[in-house]
């Protein structure tokens, strides 16, 4: 069985196994009512379906660490039913069905590197890198000189996702996007 964690080790980002499922700790807080017993309140995100729940543990309790591993993989292609990735080191392939890929589908670009999480050897989720450089495949023409007003327009990226960009961005430009917030960061060079 895996490593056992005490309440001091319940920290943000730690992956734990609770109710036979893998979770990541989103927040952990020491709480203690006046003159009372100490507890640790954690918010945990399910690594498979992404739901977030809260638990309140006595400070004397322990939690099992999840047997979770992250691996870098390259996105290959989709056949419409499965999305296929490959570990570049050993050419082993991993395939995810639509419901497991979820919103990550917006950020999938061939040859790009993604992170796949394995739990007990089984792939359970795929995460895009925090920043991606993407080509603008469609947007209204740029407006010269308007670089400071903060006004934006919608632009469709090569992956299909729509990002709000400044007015000076043109079709065919490359931009850096924050995949966590879906926001435009800056103009970029063609990678």
């Amino acid at each position, binding site marked *: 069985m895996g490593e056992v964690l005490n309440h001091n080790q319940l920290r943000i980002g730690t992956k734990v196994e609770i109710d036979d499922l893998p979770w990541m700790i989103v927040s952990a*807080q020491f709480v*203690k*009512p006046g*003159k*009372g017993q100490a507890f640790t*309140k954690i918010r945990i995100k399910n690594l498979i379906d992404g739901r977030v729940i809260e638990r309140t543990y*006595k400070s004397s*309790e322990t939690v099992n660490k999840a047997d979770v591993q992250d691996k870098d993989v390259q996105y290959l292609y989709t056949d419409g039913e499965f999305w296929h990735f490959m570990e570049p080191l050993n050419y082993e392939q991993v395939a995810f069905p639509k419901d497991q890929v979820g919103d990550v589908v917006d950020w999938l670009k061939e040859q790009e590197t993604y992170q796949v999480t394995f739990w007990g050897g089984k792939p359970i989720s795929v995460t895009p890198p925090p920043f991606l450089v993407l080509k603008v495949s469609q947007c209204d023409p740029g407006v010269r000189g308007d670089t400071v007003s903060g006004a934006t327009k919608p632009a469709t990226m090569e992956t299909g996702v729509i990002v709000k960009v400044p007015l000076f961005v043109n079709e065919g430009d490359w931009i850096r996007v924050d995949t966590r917030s879906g926001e435009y960061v800056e103009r970029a060079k063609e990678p």
Partner: protein
Amino acid sequence: MSPLATCGRGGWGMRGKTDWRPTATWQRLQQRALLLSHCRRFFSERGVLEVDTPSLSRSALPEHHIEPITCCADGSSAGALFLHTSPEAAMKRLLAAGSGPIYQLCHVFRAHEMGPHHHPEFTMLEWYRPGWNWFQLMMEVAELVGQLLDIELPPHPFPLTMSYRQALIQYAGIDLLEENQATLRRHLPADQAAALSDSDYETLLDWFWVDRVEPALARHHPALFITHFPVARAAMARVDPGPPATACRFELYIHGVELANGYQELTDAGEQERRLVAANDQRRLQGLVSLPIDQHFLAALAEGMPECAGVALGFDRLVMLACGATSIDQVTAFHIDS
């Protein structure tokens, strides 16, 4: 430019170096200083005397869930010394000696307490009002906190109060007068019951309090005094025989943050000694060492401490609330881990 203008953590870019800078911004340290001086002016205008009692003692006031930090003089375990967990014993000796109304702003120390609202060393504001009852003291707490947080506390009649029992009924669906350990357990959500299976009645109550009541207080009550605690949680408060019997104890919650804890003080030396001995018994049951009970304090009570109400307020948390900080290190110069 102030030499401290660069304080406050940058966050990114500091990794790899030892970050010696203050954890609070200079603006917050200035606000802290203003609040300290405001407190002192508040009490000075009301004729409450500032006192300054020792932090180090050969004895303690044992409590079940508060662990003092023990110092071993000369590295030997003989003659251990304790850092005070609150200035209560010393201040009550002053009251028994005829001090009249007194307050103290001091650092206190509690082992193992570390989190956004906890730090093993923190600043406490504690004061005592001889001849007052606990409701009069609640009014004064409300006035001070209202001034310091610059908030309009609800109009008279203030304070807004809710009994401990009522809070559990309202926010956890539990009536203390109807429950025992077995029935209490049935209120646990199914997915938490296993983890709490070996918990006693008091631990379960604490669980419902932190899991259900405190978040609800944060949502629904900008300011609320919780009053009339169960007798088992009387700590150093006098017990009102009722029925039902309750402890004359209050806690002030501001936006769900427990800010102050006060009592109609227990003045009966015999009863006080029984409670301290019982706390030591509980500690031993939990595998904790029993602590040498402060005999000077008991002797002072036996001689006669005036009837009074007293309260302790977490000053760092007050500063947090005043400047919208989310953790205690954002309002203190330094944190023990950084």
